[in-house]
């Protein structure tokens, strides 16, 4: 039966759609490959083809800094924030995923809020968080003034920051993805293992740590990857909620209108490499976890 189908000639629609697909892939990759190539231009190179020489000149330029922008500091900030977002996304999503498996009063409302956050135009969320922290600032200043703590009051800048408002803003974007992945995982999860653990006298914690967690570990790693990469590229939700310092994508957005050398392409190549390293590490980890599980199963 299957063999007969394979020998069937492909219909015309197959060839047309295959062509659409190939063109689509070229459309997706073409421009990106162009800037990766252009970032390795010689010192004489410009923003467009033809290539003038081949060197790491623009990467060195990048390391020395672009104008007033400290790329290294922005990179470290983005990495720090990405890691914090990753950790929070993993822990909070797993906890919420577990909670949704039980009878959770108000669970539907919570789910609705999460979906609303996912489809809310980011500029609105960002504006709201920015406003919230500005109002908090006003309140803190009022309290400090009322307590007569003049020195503290003068030293106080703003509560807007990387690990306050920006972290919260990123979580409203990453947590919905985390929760949806947890739903997908637990919809396919067989609770018989858990029941078996319980019957053998495992405490709820032991059941979670030794049975549930190892089974869902690859997906949890995936949630971590989503958390990091979504945060690493995020602009719209951070824009009004970041305060005085900027993350890498925000700096990059600013640089698009001021920097006219291929060093901006070098920066693009660099951030892409980070994304792919994170993706590679994740896939390796998932593979290792899967292999460990298979090895145990074979024993």
């Amino acid at each position, binding site marked *: 039966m299957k063999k007969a189908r394979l020998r069937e000639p492909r219909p015309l629609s197959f060839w047309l759609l295959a062509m*659409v697909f190939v063109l689509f892939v070229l459309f997706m990759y073409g421009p990106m490959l162009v800037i990766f190539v252009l970032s390795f231009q010689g010192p004489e190179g410009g923003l*467009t083809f033809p290539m003038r020489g081949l060197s790491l000149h623009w990467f060195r330029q990048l390391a020395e800094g672009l104008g007033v922008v400290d790329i290294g500091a922005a990179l470290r900030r983005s990495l720090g924030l990405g890691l914090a977002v990753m950790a929070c996304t993993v822990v909070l999503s797993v906890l919420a995923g577990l909670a949704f498996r039980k009878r959770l009063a108000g669970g539907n409302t919570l789910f609705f809020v999460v979906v609303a956050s996912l489809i809310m135009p980011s500029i609105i969320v960002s504006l709201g968080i920015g406003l*919230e922290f500005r109002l908090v600032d006003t309140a803190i200043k009022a309290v400090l003034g009322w307590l007569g703590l003049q020195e503290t009051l003068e030293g106080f800048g703003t509560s807007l920051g990387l690990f306050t408002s920006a972290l919260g803003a990123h979580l409203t974007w990453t947590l919905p993805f985390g929760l949806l992945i947890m739903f997908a995982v637990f919809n396919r999860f067989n609770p018989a293992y858990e029941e078996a653990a319980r019957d053998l006298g495992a405490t709820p914690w032991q059941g979670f740590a030794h049975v549930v967690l190892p089974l869902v570990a690859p997906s949890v790693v995936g949630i971590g990857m989503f958390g990091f990469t979504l945060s690493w590229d995020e602009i719209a939700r951070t824009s009004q909620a970041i305060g005085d310092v900027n993350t890498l994508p925000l700096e990059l957005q600013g640089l698009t209108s001021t920097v006219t050398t291929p060093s901006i392409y070098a920066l693009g190549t660099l951030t892409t490499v980070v994304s792919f390293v994170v993706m590679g590490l994740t896939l390796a980890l998932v593979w290792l976890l899967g292999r460990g599980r298979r090895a145990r199963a074979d024993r």
Partner: protein
Amino acid sequence: MSPPSTSHTAAVAAAPGRGIAAWWQAAPFTAVFVLFFLVPLGLILMVSFWDFNEYELLPGFTFKNYLSVFEGCGNTADLCTTLRTYLSTLKFSLLVWGITLVLGFAVAYFLAFHVRSPGMQTLLFVLCTIPFWTSNVIRMISWVPLLGRNGLVNQTLIDLHLIQTPIEWLLFSDFSVVLAFVHLYTMFMIVPIFNSMMRIDRSLLEAASDSGASGWQTLWNVIVPLSRTGIIIGSIFVITIVMGDFVTIGVMGGQQIASVGKIIQVQTSYLQFPLAAANAVILLAVVLMIIYGLTRLVDIRKEL
């Protein structure tokens, strides 16, 4: 999609006292959405009725901000800035939605129904998702060497003697904005539509062709209705993103094209928070109406 409510869940939930434990587990998660989503939205609504001066927000209740957003809109002869901006943003939304829908559907259809081996299917699907992991700004500026005045496209056309002078409208124009949107967000259409298509029972297609349906009839009467959920989810994603966008329109429009999101961003940079809040409330209302209309539209067709 909805929360998992299988019999598994009921079995786990049976033990008494678990409802409370569940709430402790969900509490940190819930707190994030209360603190960083619900409260901010409430504050936007509240502040949109406040007054302001150059230095600070002045609590109160005034319609001034809304009036100033719609200033001059009573005039029928000439459209006011706000309406023009909304129309332009809507135009981008519709264009991008139409293109990503057709393109995303075609790609998803190819992957789901024409690629026969599951391994190949996964491989091609992953191939489509990889660019999604690159920074959006990088993907935008990667069009510059291609579309610029001295870019690859213009150079090629001149070398082929098809044009004498470079085409100016390729970059920093409506065209480049739409192109960048399609480049960035077609993935948001492909994933949900592909997901819906993979759930379609293949025997339904055989039944359709056995009953004498042509390819188009099968597509229109079987596959499209059964991919409905994916189409709606993808559409909602693309439309809400484009309606609220200010980054893509800013970078690809050469900071020359107005959009609702951009207005909000500019107003906050001048610390005109109540005005920005009023604009955000209106934007939210428009987006919600579109989403509502979209779900209505598709549901009605399902009943026909």
